[in-house]
């Protein structure tokens, strides 16, 4: 085991429950909860901002006299004269009444990109959406820098996050285990977990920060290379949205996995740092 036992403490539980180890460092726990809170507000305020112009484009600018849109959310009046919400993705239109384009009470629908329950404030208020977004964005970025620095210094990144060659080789088995909901509670991340966390922490988090900054006309003057990296301001806005979608997907899987792996033990480890390892697997791991 590379993880360190609590030293000088009596076993907290009867032996059959397995040993309790220190799993998550303080920096990991603090940044985790900063991100959790910040992302909640960033998501809902971000959808508020998106609703001010619910279309996404590829390139430097938005096509009004030409078409470079890859996503459009709106409402149209159908042949029967009844309005309906329509979402067009890559030229293919879908009726999304009730969620996208048109939502709310049937007798008094609101015509907006995302529905009231998905935005902050619930009503249309771009300026407040921006205030919330740019407030929590600072916490999100600060937590990312703290996490990156501490993970580089204390080895968390290399030890726990970056997949090793062995992890890559074991990936098929790891995927098969997950599909059977067979989990190893040895306190270490398996290959699939490492890829998921590395993808979120080292690709999506920097990606969502940098694509956000690419939308800033001020930052375009400061760091013009951002536009080259992301292929223009409107592409950056699209990628910012894609990163958001991936994070929402990650969040859903993350919660399902926490519930499947034992929510009390998992929650304890991300709050207090203490995690109970499974007795059978831990012994096996120790002899490895």
């Amino acid at each position, binding site marked *: 085991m590379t993880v360190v036992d609590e030293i000088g403490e009596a076993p907290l539980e009867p032996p059959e429950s397995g040993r309790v180890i220190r799993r998550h460092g303080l920096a990991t726990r603090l940044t985790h909860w900063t991100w959790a809170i910040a992302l909640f507000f960033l998501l809902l305020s971000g959808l508020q901002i998106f609703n001010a112009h619910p279309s996404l484009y590829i390139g*430097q600018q*938005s096509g009004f006299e030409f078409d470079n849109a890859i996503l459009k959310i709106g409402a149209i009046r159908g042949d029967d004269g009844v309005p309906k919400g329509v979402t067009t993705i890559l030229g293919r239109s879908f009726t999304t009444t009730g969620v996208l384009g048109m939502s709310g009470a049937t007798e008094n629908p609101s015509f907006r990109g995302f529905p009231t329950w998905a935005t902050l404030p619930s009503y249309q208020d771009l300026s407040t959406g*921006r205030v919330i977004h740019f407030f929590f964005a600072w916490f999100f970025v600060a937590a990312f820098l703290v996490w990156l620095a501490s993970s580089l210094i204390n080895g968390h990144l290399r030890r726990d996050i970056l997949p090793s060659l062995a992890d890559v080789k074991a990936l098929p088995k790891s995927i098969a285990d997950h599909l059977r909901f067979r989990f190893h509670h040895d306190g270490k991340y398996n290959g699939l977990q490492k890829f998921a966390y590395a993808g979120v922490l080292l690709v999506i988090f920097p990606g969502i920060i940098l694509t956000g900054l690419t939308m800033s006309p001020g930052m375009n003057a400061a760091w013009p290379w951002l536009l080259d990296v992301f292929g223009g301001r409107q592409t950056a806005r699209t990628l910012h949205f894609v990163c958001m979608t991936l994070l929402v997907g990650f969040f859903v899987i993350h919660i399902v996995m926490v519930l499947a792996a034992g929510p009390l033990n998992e929650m304890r480890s991300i709050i207090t740092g203490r995690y109970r390892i499974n007795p059978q697997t831990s012994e096996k791991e120790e002899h490895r």
Partner: protein
Amino acid sequence: MSRFLVNRRRFLTVAGVAAAAVPLSGCDGLDGYLSGQSPVRGFMASANTLTYRVQRVLIGADQLAPEFAASEVRQGQRPNGSTDPTDADYLTLQGRAFSDYRLQVTGLVEKPVSFSLNELRNMPARTQITRHDCVEGWSCIAKWSGVPLARVLDEAKVKPEARFVVFHCFDSMNLGLSGAVPYYESIDLIDARHPQTIVAYGCNDQPLPVANGAPLRVRIERQLGYKMAKYIKSIEVVSTLEPFGRGKGGFWEDLGYEWYAGI
């Protein structure tokens, strides 16, 4: 064992808070904290001051906004906000093709001056192809021609105590119960003296159309579109923004938008 109970209690608290947050987003539970005058909103809005300071450090005073090739001008400049002012003085000027229009420069200057459109067109010009970013999220690339604002300010000789430049406009925006409110905007002297900050009289090789702010609009290329006042009546150099509108430095700022719109 007791530790575990504490942890379980803590877990339940967190789970409870998390569970409560989900329907909160669904309903309007947080809206009360976010309305115009709420202190929570005011506190969050102060982060914009941090953004302003940090961007001022990261962006050199004269660092240029990206400029684009002529081939990137693929459409007309999309008009937004006021597109056809109906204010009486404006209609009079428009009726005479702005021939008796004069741009007034007033406030904290040694020598208040005014310029006709012809005088401005005969001053050293700057043409730039830049991207206009609306706060709503869209962008549009267009070619702009005009006089550097720095040049206009130099003609009037700005006094040392000056801190901001205010643009007073001909157009009024209807605010329901408050009636029509004249548009105005303001920027600091760093942006006012930036080489790409021009008082534009031309757009895409044509005289500035009414929809885009004829006879004059300002271009402030490192900020969002709402900063770039159209239908400019006069330019006032000031040391404080308090006397204007509700004191926040602009029409949209008075309604809750950030004064610094570099993000």
